[in-house]
């Protein structure tokens, strides 16, 4: 489920490997933007994500009907008054999709944020201090990693009950280890870099070195990872809903809409096709953006191509 053929661990491996390949990461902002502009995929992704984010912000205001209003007739095919048709309860699908944008985005972003903050902290501390601290934290991360995502999320939701908050926490917990690993790998590399050694030589304390010197330099892979994580969160929500462990069915999320349509794919294709497309488009945009971002931030690859 949740980790549908996941990107994340692959991402981890990639970052580890690119860490091997790279000597230095240029962080100059203007160069970054120039490269990003060159990455048309990323721009396309950014544009779509931005559009959807806007929809999430203003969504409820522009939805043509109340998302719960259910007196439009069951299984009405798409028409002018209901561009996406009506669902199996007789509700306007477009309105539910628009309102659902915010919910789905919120779930994805919150899950990614929580995973990011916790994961980054753990990875930073583990990578920087090394030795037993590293061992302790990384064993815990390994534990999380080795513990199947599916069991983690299903178990969490089963213990604490379904509902948006628990779904968010469960997803965050499942993807936290990826951040920790990415950051740790970066820190391990940066620890040996000249500027860290220099900072240490002039007597900067550990906290200062971590926050001022190392953290900014790990920003790139974190951002890339976070972009993917938002998409994974949105996917995971639909997967959990499929297993009957999603948010309260009264909350209009995309995953819920998709699930409510799955029994009627043949008699009313639109109920599952539109939410499915929405999820796909969103995750695709995030992935393209993240991928482009990675390429733009990856000095070596870009210079090779130039």
């Amino acid at each position, binding site marked *: 489920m949740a980790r549908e053929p996941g990107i994340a661990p692959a991402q981890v491996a990639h970052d580890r490997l690119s860490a091997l390949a790279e000597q230095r990461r240029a962080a100059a902002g203007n160069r970054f933007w120039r490269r990003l502009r060159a990455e048309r995929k990323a721009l396309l992704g950014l544009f779509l994500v931005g559009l959807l984010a806007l929809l999430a912000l203003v969504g409820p205001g522009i939805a043509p009907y109340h998302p719960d209003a259910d007196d439009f007739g069951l299984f009405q095919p798409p028409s002018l008054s209901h561009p996406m048709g009506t669902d199996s309860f007789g509700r306007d699908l477009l309105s539910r999709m628009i309102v659902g944008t915010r919910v789905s985005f919120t779930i994805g972003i919150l899950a990614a944020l929580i995973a990011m903050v916790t994961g980054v902290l753990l990875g930073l501390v583990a990578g920087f201090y090394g030795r037993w601290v590293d061992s302790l934290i990384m064993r815990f991360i390994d534990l999380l990693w080795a513990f199947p995502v599916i069991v983690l999320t299903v178990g969490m939701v089963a213990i604490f009950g*379904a509902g948006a908050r628990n779904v968010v926490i469960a997803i965050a917990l499942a993807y936290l280890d990826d951040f920790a690993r990415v950051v740790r790998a970066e820190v391990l590399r940066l620890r040996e870099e000249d500027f860290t050694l220099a900072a240490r030589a002039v007597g900067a304390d550990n906290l200062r070195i971590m926050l001022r010197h190392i953290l900014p330099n790990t920003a790139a892979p974190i951002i890339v990872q976070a972009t993917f994580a938002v998409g994974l969160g949105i996917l995971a929500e639909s997967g959990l809903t499929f297993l009957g462990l999603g948010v309260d069915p009264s909350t209009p999320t995309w995953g819920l809409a998709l699930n409510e349509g799955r029994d009627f794919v043949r008699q009313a294709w639109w109920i599952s096709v539109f939410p499915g497309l929405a999820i796909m488009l969103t995750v695709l945009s995030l992935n393209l953006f993240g991928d482009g971002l990675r390429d733009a931030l990856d000095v070596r690859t870009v210079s090779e191509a130039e």
Partner: protein
Amino acid sequence: MKRFDWRVLSGPRVSRRTLMQMALATGAVGFAQWLSACAGGGATPTAAPAAGATPQAVPATPSGATPTAAATPAGEARRGGTLRLGFGIGQILTLDPAQVTQGIVAGELVSNIFSSLVQFDKDLGLIPDLAETWEVNEDGTEYTFHLRDGLKFHNGDPLLAQDFIYTYERTTNPDFASPHANKLNLITSITAPDELTLVIKLSEPYAPFLATACSRGPGRALTPISKRAIEEMGDQQFGLTPVGCGPFMVVPESVEVGKGFRMVAFEDWYGGRPLLDEIIVQIIPEPSSRISALEAGDVDMLDIVPASGVEQLKANDRITLVEAPGTNWIGLTMNYKRPPWDNVDARMAVSKAINRQEFIDKALFGLAVPSIGAIAPAFGWVYVPPEQWGENPQGYNLEEAKALAEKSGIRGTSVKILSSAQDPRPEEVLRTMLQEIGLDVQIEQLQDAAYNERWKAGDYDMNINGSVVDADPDDGHWNFFHSKGPWNTYGYNNPKVDELLEGTRKTNNQDERRQMWHEIQRILQRDVAYAFLYHTPDRTAFYTYVKGYVAIPEMRYLETVWLEK
């Protein structure tokens, strides 16, 4: 009070009419209702299927001579072939009759692996199964069964009266923890005067005894078990690869929990070898996948058709959809132990806010009938259709509902409805309807284990549930509405209802009893013990080349089935 002569229950055949009279005469009203409902006898306006019923939908209760579905008017029964049965369940927990708690496993699978003393015919009379004849004494406390000669278990061992004694001892052994042991509580002695005679004595008369303890399918507690098989493989393994005595035998190597198993024809079945060579039971838990599997031709028959697939299957002219009246009622319960739901105004406000027909149209695609009480429409002798019932205080009336919501202070509050994970459609529709009276319903979805425990413990605000068919649906009232009813987990306690419920078990005057049930229904409506919602039918579907199926509600006896292909 007129003394009843229990000898009418003696076999080789007990008609449904007799069973009903007996049941009514002895207070086993629920059982009588079940019989009545399942046979769907003439006058009853059975659960009318939704508009647009297709011609191939076969009435489950053919009144004519042919027991088979109308799809096989004149076909010559053929031998051989494999029937692939798509079965909708997460996993089959056990096939051991004494341990089965999954109703469809008992009625549809175990009944094909095991015969029992008696069985139901298509009109739901009792006919011989392993017992050729039987007698019941005048007091109704002694049953004497005469077994057929030459009966065999699947492992070749002879099946004799002693095997029933062994089965009785096994089922009632406290260490074995059979959930059905309670059905044998009244037995004071079970003896075998000779190999083919079984004598069972009860401490007091109990009309549904034959059906609940001795019948093929529901009579799980006394379904005969091979002692040698148990000794050879142990109880756990027996649950996976049972050695039965019915028309089909399980192929042990084929058993895979969660995937299914194969059954092959039992040559030595007393009724002769069944027509099919083999039945493959394939588990398909996902409702949409189940429909797809049938339409793709992966399976020939489905056990139960989910409401969401009915339209689609009706449109497929290669598939026969069979609908039989199910006897059940489903309602919304509001927990008396959780204020404000102890206030009848609050409960009434909710009930009056629910437009039953609209609810059914949206939640069940119109495939059910509105309910005004716990008496299913198929119970013709006592059921009164809503339009003839007169005033139903809990019926839909939005204006009154709003006023009551205001008065009881539930307007603007929120409430949690406990829901199982399978399909929260009814809860979702309810949520939208209750918004009208300013009540915010949150749906709390739980997996089965947690759901059952919470429900059993009465740990919920609201919940949609009800009684579904088993051999003794007297539970459908007693268990839910008696203050000591085991499924009364919501704290309903009305001494008048208790008194009436007990009364229905003591009197044998049918008119009097009908009055009592109506009185009970009136009180339940007024109290809003439940906000009664709907009744649903029992549906199966198969390809038109599947012939000879006899529709017995909630059962799938497959020995008469054959394939025309």
